[in-house]
């Protein structure tokens, strides 16, 4: 069997032993990753949803560190892939239904619903999620879909903002995100200060953190396609978010997944909506430039 660092299972480590852990675990883990005999790679399945086919890979930008871009869908088991191939079987769609209802519900002091200004979401929201995060002059920082929704709610509707991972926010981001399905990720890195935010995200992406002393790149750039124990490593793309994760038994946001990954490597995670996660979300989105939006996707 593949070597596995059993000692990583014990999490009670003293300060002194952290150094030992770093010295022992990191090479052990790298050995586990690097020497596994099972190089599973992305599979060759075709994503077809209710009869329509969607490309799930694309050529990267010239300066991309990745040889080719693959959606996370290509790394999942056939059963998980099937769940995304039918909008009825896809468990995320009850949330999409809720999002549609909310879209048409009057909320807030100004007596408006999203529909009052934006009409039919299929028209007005087409492409919106594909461009997120997007520069905001007003905020002097990038908007994510969540912050944009709240800006509209507070500013235009006089309605209270929703929490990042609240059921309503997940429902609305899923519904709005769905209107970009099949459109390529298209973040604009030239607007405002996007370059410096992207650079900040890039630093975070390549920085080793946590007891396991790993960076995003260690798994998702250097070892995508390989197995880490029983998980099939993807490129860590975000084109499917918000998505239904089998492990969560529900929908979750990009920042939730970022938090989970950081906890897995025993690092103190940043918070949802933090500048760090916004920068990271931007950088990771840019790594997936050109991949089709699959919101709401289904993953493990």
């Amino acid at each position: 069997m593949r070597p596995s660092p059993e000692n990583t299972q014990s999490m009670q480590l003293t300060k002194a032993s952290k150094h030992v852990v770093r010295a022992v675990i990191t090479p052990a883990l790298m050995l586990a990753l690097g020497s596994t005999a099972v190089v599973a790679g992305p599979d060759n399945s075709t994503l077809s949803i209710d009869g329509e086919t969607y490309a799930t890979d694309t050529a990267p930008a010239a300066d991309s560190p990745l040889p080719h871009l693959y959606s996370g869908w290509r790394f999942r088991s056939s059963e998980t892939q099937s769940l995304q191939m039918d909008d009825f079987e896809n468990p995320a769609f009850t949330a999409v239904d809720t999002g549609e209802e909310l879209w048409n519900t009057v909320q807030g002091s100004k007596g408006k619903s999203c529909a009052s200004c934006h009409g039919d979401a299929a028209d007005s929201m087409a492409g919106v999620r594909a461009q997120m995060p997007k520069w905001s002059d007003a905020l002097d920082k990038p908007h994510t879909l969540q912050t944009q929704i709240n800006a509209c709610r507070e500013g235009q509707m006089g309605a209270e903002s929703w929490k990042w991972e609240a059921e309503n926010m997940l429902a609305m981001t899923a519904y709005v995100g769905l209107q970009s399905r099949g459109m390529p990720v298209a973040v604009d890195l030239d607007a405002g200060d996007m370059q410096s935010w992207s650079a900040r995200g890039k630093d975070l992406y390549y920085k080793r953190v946590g007891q396991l002393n790993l960076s995003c790149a260690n798994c998702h750039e250097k070892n995508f396609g390989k197995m880490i124990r029983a998980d099939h490593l993807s490129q860590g793309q975000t084109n499917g978010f918000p998505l239904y994760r089998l492990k969560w038994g529900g929908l979750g946001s990009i920042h939730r997944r970022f938090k989970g990954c950081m906890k897995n490597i025993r690092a103190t995670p940043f918070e949802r909506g933090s500048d760090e996660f916004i920068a990271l979300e931007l950088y990771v989105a840019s790594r997936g430039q050109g991949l089709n939006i699959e919101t709401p996707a289904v993953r493990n």
Partner: protein
Amino acid sequence: MANKIKPRVKVPKTATAGEIITIKTLISHKMESGQRKAKDGSLIPRKILNHFKAEFAGTIIFEAEIAPGISANPFFSFNARVQESGEFHFTWTDDDGSIYEAKKSITVS
């Protein structure tokens, strides 16, 4: 808006008499198993949908006694032999006594 329990049902709009159709149902529900622990170590109480029923013209065509081992957002796909037009009536029952319903009509020629 509080935790919404939303049913989704898929029934073909039309069928021929005697045809066996496929019905799919999904409902958003956490299906709290009663096995999970809260941060303080106490058990989170069980709260699931424990029963599902599909009826047509007063006859039960499919029924499920549901245990906590069924995943969150319970999904069921099953069949029905239709002889005449009518309305399917779907009912889910929560441990707390709440009832959730959905209806879908079918035209049978």
